[in-house]
């Protein structure tokens, strides 16, 4: 059953609704973007996703309902075991009514993702543009670069209304991350540019930071490589960094 109209869409329901149909035996890797919603229904049903080592059509795992041709994707139910939703998306909108699996919005360039539940690790990894909002909590590695890559988030905005795990905005080069709750360790490690705001408490902040700004509302631990200034800290001195860590006013 399709749900209430999406906020901001004037009550017109034109979208693709998906719901898990089975209890997954292993997790699903579904590299789906809102563009799929604009495709013919048959094509949508046959769209292939990875189910362990099998490639299966979407309809084998999900109930799908299509209403209109707009690029809006609504995921209903528990998607916590579905990964890579919104990977590299450029436009359109994804609304997740429950929890979402890892890598949601990775490499995202534009458009909007709303998660009404919790998100797993790698939310908005290496994101370049667009917007992600999570009502619940997120796992680790928010907006981080994948292993070995030199640049993290480059643009766009991520808002998490709950808490976030460890590693946030590593090697960040632009864009904004806001965590309304608490965060874990290693915020803005090797950050080069952009802005991170943590409203609650967090652990280590700013290790090897070269630039950018971090604002924190609660308690935190700045690494012992920052110089105290009138309104916060500047560092990391070990990389001749000019990053700023300040208390959130």
């Amino acid at each position, binding site marked *: 059953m399709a749900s209430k109209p999406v906020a901001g869409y004037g009550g017109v329901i034109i979208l693709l609704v998906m719901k898990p149909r089975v209890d997954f035996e292993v997790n699903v890797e579904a590299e789906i973007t809102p563009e799929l919603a604009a495709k013919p229904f048959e094509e949508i049903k046959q769209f292939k996703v990875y189910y362990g080592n099998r490639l299966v059509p979407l309809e084998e795992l999900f109930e799908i309902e299509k209403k209109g041709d707009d690029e809006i994707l609504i995921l209903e139910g528990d998607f916590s075991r579905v990964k890579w939703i919104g990977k590299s998306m450029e436009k359109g909108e994804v609304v997740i009514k429950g929890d979402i699996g890892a890598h949601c919005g990775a490499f995202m360039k534009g458009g909007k993702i709303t998660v009404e539940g919790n998100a797993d690790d*790698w939310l908005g990894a290496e994101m370049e543009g667009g917007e992600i909002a999570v009502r619940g909590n997120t796992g680790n590695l928010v907006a981080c670069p994948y292993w070995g890559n030199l640049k993290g988030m480059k643009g766009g905005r991520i808002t998490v209304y709950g808490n976030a795990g460890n590693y946030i905005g590593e090697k960040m080069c632009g864009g904004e991350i806001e965590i309304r709750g608490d965060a874990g360790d290693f915020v803005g490690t090797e950050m080069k540019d952009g802005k991170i705001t943590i409203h609650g408490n967090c652990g280590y902040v700013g290790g090897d930071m070269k630039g950018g700004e971090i604002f924190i509302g609660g308690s935190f631990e700045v690494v012992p490589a920052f110089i105290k200034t009138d309104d916060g800290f500047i560092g990391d001195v070990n990389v001749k960094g000019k990053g700023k860590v300040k208390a959130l006013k």
Partner: protein
Amino acid sequence: MRNAICTFCGNACDDIEFDGFVGKNLCPLGEAKFSAKQRIEGPVVNGERVSYEEAIDRAVEILVNAKRPLLYGFASTVNEAIRLGVILAEKLGGIYDQCSSVCHAPSTLAMIEEGIPGGTLGQAKNRADVVVFWGCNPVEAHPRHPSRYSVMAKGFLTKGRQYRHVIVVDVRKTATAYLATEFYQVKPGYDYAIFSALRSIINGHEDAVPDEVGGVSREKLKEFADILVNGKYGVIFYGLGLTHTRGSDRSVENLVKLVQTLNRHTRYIIQPMRGHFNVVGASAVAAWEAGYEYAIDFSRGHSRFFPSEFTAVEALIRRDCDAALIIASDPAAHFPKRAVERLTEIPVIQIDPHPNITTLIADIVIPSALVGIEAEGTIYRMDGIPLRVKKFKETEYWSDYEILKLMLDKVIRLKGE
């Protein structure tokens, strides 16, 4: 058998003399490993004794039908068997993971960030005038390390204990700390901050260091930095105290950065104190066959590396594998509760010489020959130096290699490739 290799810890001492099961030169840990232990008598499927061929047939059936089988263990077998394990995972579209993922995986992640300025154990023996043990306790975990390689070793240029400055950094006064010239007790979870503080001091930014970091006063830290910089050739050994602490991979990475800094002033290398005798081989073989060291998923036919999802523990907790092949390891005894719960839900195949907790939950149990006594092959010591473990006792048991070879042949035949 002379010059045999002890197949217990990452030291891989290669001067063991065997006379039956009694080994000369073994330390107590090695002795315990080689003392006669209970063996799995024969292949078992669902409680019934069967032949090796039948057990392998049944195992293969489970594995090819799985959507993502997990292949885990490998750190206590030889490279030849590990190689087949990696290829088997590839052909099955499953996961290859090995014991590193629960011990020194943070070292791999740190290497991915910054590299590893390392060297052989012989460098500690022959050249080091400063030896640091950070979060490791060789006296208890690698008993012959101090005498063979580090603290007391008589080297080419550094002739013995009196020429070495030995420093121990740990959260409590360990047995190794009693061998040290200096002992620094730190607060748990503050290694990362201490590395940054030492870097700040060496880089001339004392002003960035508060009066106390992680329970160590700034004065003490300055003294420590001084000792480090004044060494001619230093070796920093680190262990699970660092890789299992808060922010483990970033902590190791920060240690690497400290060593990079030290190399701008003098010479330093670091060396992880690896546990199992071939955990390095289990990483290396996978790297040349598949490009990564652990947490490798082949579900798409080629290798992908996602340590946040495809380590054995994560794959189990995330319910992302639906069968498991466990080789020379005991995850049921060592994994977190939620991971073990998942293990009990899925079909488990075990290959091991000895029964252990995992045997109790395994559907198929295949006994194997004892590596280094009944089966030969190549292993890598903690510093990656390859050694050949020997076979000097005949046995009816199949080796890991033979078991995996038949499995792989059958899988290839079934898949029609």
